[in-house]
């Protein structure tokens, strides 16, 4: 028997139609991005309505809100359905993969919930985040520092020690791509802005793009 006589993976033929965990993670991320986008549209609608003195809702406005609500529910359903499918599969995973996946899920949930929470609060109730001078409330700043400066690095370091060498390599390759994208992309963006050919570089946009690139390379290398 030679390697070419055997199938590439040990998945049963009937299971081929089932999406992989990589596809499920991509769907959950896409649903999360969709939810953030829809939250922005909803907040924009509320702000525009407030600027007009909160008039009664027209049929058109109700239709738009219904579509936003339906799309939001669809995103939530996609995220929940795929999360539950991953959870069911986690119990059958090899020990190290199971532990690594659980930490990843906790980190993604923590990051997603706090990010969405901060974003929505900033739009819906900015007084809870900012003082009258436009400064971020000190307790919230401390929470953000603890999350991003302490819990994040600690969780990442713990996960890196639990995961196997294949995923660690994928993660490091993603980090390398992200670092290079920042190193070369930010000066290019800055130069274009200085020449009046682009909008001013935004730190949050740069970090978001770097994280998306990082996760894209990481997931591709891990699952495909």
């Amino acid at each position: 028997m030679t390697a070419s006589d055997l199938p590439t993976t040990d998945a049963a033929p009937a299971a081929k139609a089932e999406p992989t965990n990589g596809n499920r993670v991509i769907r959950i991320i896409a649903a999360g991005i969709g939810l953030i986008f829809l939250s922005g549209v909803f907040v924009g609608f509320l702000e525009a309505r407030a600027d007009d003195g909160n008039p009664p809702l027209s049929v058109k406005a109700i239709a738009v809100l219904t579509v936003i609500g339906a799309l939001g529910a669809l995103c939530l359903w996609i995220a929940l359905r795929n999360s539950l499918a991953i959870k069911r599969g986690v119990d059958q995973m090899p020990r190290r993969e199971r532990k690594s996946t659980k930490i990843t899920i906790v980190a993604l949930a923590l990051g997603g919930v706090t990010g969405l929470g901060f974003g929505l609060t900033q739009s819906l109730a900015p007084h809870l985040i900012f003082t009258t001078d436009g400064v971020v409330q000190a307790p919230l700043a401390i929470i953000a520092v603890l999350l991003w400066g302490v819990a994040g690095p600690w969780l990442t370091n713990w996960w890196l020690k639990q995961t196997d060498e294949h995923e660690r390599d994928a993660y490091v390759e993603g980090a390398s791509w992200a670092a290079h994208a920042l190193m070369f992309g930010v000066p290019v963006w800055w130069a274009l802005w200085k020449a009046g050919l682009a909008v001013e570089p935004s730190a949050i946009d740069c970090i978001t793009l770097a994280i998306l690139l990082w996760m894209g390379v990481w997931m591709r290398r891990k699952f495909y």
Partner: protein
Amino acid sequence: MKNQLKVLRAMRNWSQADLADKLDVSRQAVNAIETGKHDPSLPLAFRIARLFDMTIEEIFDDSL
């Protein structure tokens, strides 16, 4: 790097998940090694060799 992992695993009727559990890696890692997308580290190569009671050279072929 070419290797005999898939054949050795099939001869023992192990799934990728079974082998992953024995090697303490993920199923994706076993798949990546079998398909030549990931070259294992020296410690993992030794674990594989010990598991199959063979030498590293008998399992992995580094000839170009």
